[in-house]
Structure formats: C-alpha cells, structure tokens
C-alpha cells in the first residue's frame, strides 16, 4: 500500500497482549548522505565523494530497476522535518510503532556496505552502520533492535564484525542480502555462519543486494515487477544452496530467517529438494537428511509481502505446511508494499496461532521471550 487509509487507533499506553506485535522488517534510513560520516574514518569520506560506493551494478546512484515510487517507500511516510521516508525516529514512532502496538521492531538497514566491490570500504561502511543503528535508533527506543550488517563477500572480516558485536544486546541478528557473488551456501560465506552460531544469533537473509549475476537464470529482465516477484526465486536458490552445501550439518544450532521474499514457495521447494535428493544424494553425501527436515528445523520466514490467495483456506493450507511456528510478522515499514497488521491475516485463526504469528515466534527466536 502507498498510503494508510485506515484511521489509526490511539496508541495504547501499555501495549496489551491482544494487539502487541513484533515487526521483523523495518527499514531505517539516513536523513542525509553524510549522516554516516561520524562513524567512518576520514579517508572514506573523501573516497565516497570521489568514487562513490562502486557496487556490483552499474548505477552510480540508485537502483538499476527504478522503484515504483521514491525510495520504494510510502508516500505518507516522509517525516515532517524533511529527509527520506524512514529517516526519523520520532515520526516512525508516531506513524508506526505507537499506533500499531509494536513491542519489538527489528531494523534491517539496506543501503550498507553489502554489495560493494571494494571489500575494505564494504567493511568500513557496515561497521559504521552498526554504530549508527545503536546511536540513532536502538539506544533511543528500547522497542527497536538492530541487525549486525557485515561485508558478506569477505567471510573472515564479516565473522570478526559478528564476534565484535555478537554479545551487544542492541542486536538480535546478523543480516545478509540474498543476491551475492555466489549462492550463500558456498564456502566463502561459511565463517559468517560459524561466527553467528558461536555468538548465538540467527542470520537473516533479506531480499535484494547485488552480486554481479544476472537476476534470472536467463539474464536480465526488463521490469521492476520482475525484480520484485523474482526475489522469491532468488531466495529459493539461496535456501537450496545453504541446505545442499551442508551448512546446517556443520552448524546444528544455527537458525536463519528468509526476509521479504514470501513463504508460499517453501513447501513446493522442500518437496522438490526431497525428491531430487532421493535420486541424487550420492552427489552430496554431506547432506544426511531429507532437505525438508533442515528447512523445518532451521528456517523462519518473515510474512511481508504476504501471499494473498483468493481463498483463505488455500492460505491456511500453505501456512500449515510451512508451520505456524515458523512465521514472523513484518510490515516492511516504510516501504510501499507495507502489510497492515490489522488486515494481513484473514479471520479463522486460532488465538495461539495468531499470537505466535504476530509476536511469540519472534520473541522466542530472538531470545526475548
């Protein structure tokens, strides 16, 4: 949705159990280009002014597929004091956190060092973003929790950042993006999973990013809608890679979250993986169990953009197959495809499932229960 038409309820003085939600995908933005500079060494200010970020795609500024509207964000989400959508804590509180009774908001910064070709710069920006999350957001509102962003193409440096921040209670997960140089199960990324398991944080994989590969197996498509719909196909390839490379065999305590790529595809992918594994397991002897079991045991999904079938019994079938205990509600605030918590789940859900969906799964996964 572009604009929230529903009249917002008065903020509850203390969020009551019936309406309290966890929002597992909120995107904080910088108010200005230079907002990050206090957290970055001087040499990088000059570097960024001269050469920009130099990502794995051609555009100096902005995305190669123009968004449907500025910053892919809601038109009613510009803060009154100026700056882009999602850049003001007070307006985020007023427009989203308070009226929607968010008791836990997980921050997923997107424009970070991830997908930058200069790995040293990537690490510096990621570290700066982590400092910035604490100073601008999590230290100012205890409902908000940060994500440790890491220079994911450089496993060793990423692992060091995870170990440095892992026990800081401002952070509840490690954040990766889905489109990387190689599929995320591959060994260049293994130090990330090792470090995350060691510090006891789940790893979220958010749709987006650039890794230099065409975003379909037949090259570059034409339209933004293809990129958006295609995130679920990217995420399937990511998940297949992680399972088939044996990441969960090596890291039995590791949990991962598929963020903003839907969940309806997961049952069909699991069945396809199982069927193929039955035939081809001699190629991957390190995969000891049917792939669907690793997915069931290790993977969570954020809900937005929620699959929207014509018939609600179809939605409930799919959620039954994925597991009511595996979904984490998310709005994607302030982005245009925001899911409204009051409308996202059709009627007919039991109270325990409803509470698990909106709140309890997240509190449990993030160790905040």
């Amino acid at each position, binding site marked *: 949705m572009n604009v929230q038409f529903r009249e917002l309820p008065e903020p509850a003085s203390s969020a009551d159990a019936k309406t309290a939600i966890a929002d597992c995908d909120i995107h904080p933005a910088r108010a200005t280009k230079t907002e990050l500079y206090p957290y970055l060494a001087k040499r990088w200010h000059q570097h960024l002014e001269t050469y920009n970020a130099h990502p794995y795609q051609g555009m100096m500024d902005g995305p190669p597929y123009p968004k449907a509207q500025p910053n892919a964000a809601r038109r009613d989400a510009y803060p009154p004091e100026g700056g882009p959508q999602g850049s003001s804590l007070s307006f985020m509180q007023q427009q989203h956190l308070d009226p929607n009774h968010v008791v836990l908001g997980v921050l997923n910064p997107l424009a970070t060092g991830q997908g930058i070709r200069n790995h040293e710069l990537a690490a510096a920006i990621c570290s700066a973003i982590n400092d910035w999350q604490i100073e601008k957001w999590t230290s100012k509102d205890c409902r908000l929790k940060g994500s440790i962003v890491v220079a994911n193409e450089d496993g060793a440096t990423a692992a060091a950042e995870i170990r440095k921040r892992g026990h800081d209670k401002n952070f509840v997960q490690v954040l990766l993006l889905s489109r990387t140089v190689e599929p995320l199960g591959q060994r260049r990324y293994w130090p990330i999973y090792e470090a995350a398991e060691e510090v006891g944080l789940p790893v979220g994989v958010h749709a987006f990013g650039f890794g230099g590969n065409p975003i379909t197996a037949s090259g570059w498509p034409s339209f933004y809608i293809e990129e958006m719909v295609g995130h679920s196909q*990217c995420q399937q390839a990511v998940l297949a890679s992680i399972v088939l490379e044996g990441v969960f065999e090596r890291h039995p305590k590791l949990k991962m979250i598929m963020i903003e790529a839907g969940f309806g595809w997961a049952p069909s992918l699991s069945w396809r993986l199982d069927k193929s594994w039955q035939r081809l397991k001699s190629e991957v002897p390190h995969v000891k169990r049917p792939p669907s079991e690793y997915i069931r045991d290790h993977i969570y999904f954020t809900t937005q953009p929620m699959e929207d079938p014509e018939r609600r019994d179809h939605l409930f079938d799919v959620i039954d197959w994925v597991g009511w205990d595996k979904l984490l509600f998310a709005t994607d605030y302030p982005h245009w495809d925001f899911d409204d918590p009051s409308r996202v789940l059709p009627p007919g859900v039991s109270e325990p499932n409803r509470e698990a969906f909106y709140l309890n799964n997240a509190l449990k996964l993030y160790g905040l229960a």
Partner: protein
Amino acid sequence: MTSPVAGGVDCDLHPAVPHLTSLLPYLNDYWRDQVTTRGMTDLVSQSYPSNSPISARPDWRPAKGKPGASLADMQARALAPFGVSYGICNPLFGVQMVFSEDMADAFCRALNDWLVKEWLDKDARLRGSIVIPVQSIEKSVTEIERCARDERFVQVLMLVMGDMPLGKRAYWPIYAAADRLGLPIGIHAGSSYHNPPTSVGWGSYHIEDYVAQAQAFQTQLTSLIVEGVFARHPGLKMVMLESGFTWLPSYLWRLHKFWRGIRMETPWVDRAPLEIVRSNIRFSLQPIDAPPDPQTLNRLFDHMQSDELLLFSTDYPHWQFDGDAALPEGMSPELVRKIMIDNPYATYGRLKQLALKEETP
C-alpha cells in the same frame, strides 16, 4: 495406482541422439567437415549427464548407449504401457549450448531432420517439437517455417534457461511464427549455460542445477506475462515441460499481488496474471514435486483452481516415478481424462486435426 485411460497423449518424451556423429548424414559438406576435422565432442548438456540417476530410471537404463536412444525401448516402456495414441518427442540434445548461431542453426536443422527420419517415420504415434537456434531470431523463424510444413511437428521447443528472459521483445517474431502456424511454444527444463543457472550465481552441484529449473520457469513465466506476449498473441499456448507445477499457486498469488500494486509499469498487460495462465499456459504432469499422500496433492490441485492446466507426461526416460505410477495416487477419473486426453488435444491443435482426419476416412 491411478489407471491411465487409453487414447491419451504423452507430452514429454526424450529421444536421444546417440552421438553428434549421428547427425553427420543430416549436415552439409561444410558442417560435416567442421565436426570431423575439429574433433568436436558430443553435445551432452550438464543439465542431464547421461549417467546421472535423474537422466534414466534404473529399470529403463539400457545396457549400453544413451538412455532414450532406442525406439524399441521407448515403445515398450512409455508408449505401450500407458496406451497413448500420441507421444511428443522433445529432443534435449545440447545444440543450444554452442555459441555460434551458424553452428547452432546447422545442428538444429540436422536434429529436426534426424527426428523425422529416425523416429517420426518409424512410429505413427510419434510427434515432434521443432528445436530452434534461438540466438538468431531470423534463423529460428526460418527453421520453424521449414519444419512446420510437416504436420507431425506439433510445437516449437525452447529451453528455460537461455540468453535472455523469454518475454523479451526480440523473441516475438518466433512467437508470431508459432501462432501463425498453429504451434504452441514448449519450454523445457535445461540450460544453454550462457548464464549462471541460478539468479545468485553458479551452485556447486548438479542437484542444485536440477532444483533450480523450477525457479527458472517461474522467472520466465513472469517475463512472458509482463512483457505482454499474451496481449499480442491471446491464442498462443505455451507449455512448461518438466517444470514441476506445485509451485504455481503460491507463485501466482505473489505475482498477482505485485501486479495489482505496480501494474502502471506494464499497462499493456490486459488481463490478470491468473487469467493469462489459465488461458495460455500449460504444464506437463511430471515431475510431481509433492509428498506421496493423495490428500496434500488434491489440496494442491484445488489451489490451482483449474483442471485444464496439466498435460500427461512420463518424461521418459528420466526418473520421475517408479513402476506404472505416472499418474499419482488419488486422482479422479475425470481429472485423468482431462490430463491425458482433453487438455493435450486442446493445447496441440495439430493433434486434434489429425485425430479428426483419421476418424473420417
């Protein structure tokens, strides 16, 4: 087991070219010389390594040679047991992998002529798909027009992973030719390997490539729909072959939601994606990526909200099912009839014509 009905159509059979040298009689002097002088190797795609378990069912694997190379085997394993009236041959010889459009053109012509002589001429039930040198639109159209004169060619065949997304306007002359000649476009699993097989790069394993075919079909369907192929050709059918289909409902929910949100980007898309799929897109039955219990599968059929989307296939000689269980457990006789007879005839216009001709002497 669900019993087949007689008179059906097997929409996905794979006759194998024994070796590149088997095509020598169908090549001109220049290309015959190129193949022999340069010592060209056989064109076996990594998508289907000959010895991979998915490339042939254990009990269908021949003592020697490539699986699918023997007509007698195909007759005994696939055509006879399921009582089909027609079987559509989709050769997966790796002609799409070569980078020269001239070479690809020569090999495609040879492959199509080989199919006629070695298969279609030898069993009246067999029908063919026209393999095209897709790097050259012009040569592809010429080859479609050349082969289409033989009514036994019933569709045009493309691979799901190629140089560009299939909806791209550059490909449209191919679709126009197919539409004009009454040929559906068959899109089969497999890659030219001109791009990495996933949207996030090269996986480590063959199993990843195979699993990734389903995601490639999904992105291709998006491309075909949003580029407007079916607004231009509302009567054109496209058949997803060896694609799997259990991903379709949730994929469409997602596509539909985004289409409603940003349809201003592609205003020429004149119908909802769901509607386009129901009228223009078909899927071969195998593989069935679902658990073996009939209850789940029947829920999935219900999610598809149409009994017209699936076309019977054995995917011979690939290993998709065991015994005679090409049709999954728990399928109603009405659905079996739709999948085996009504849907294939409604899709492949050229089959219908032939069937009618044969009925009226």
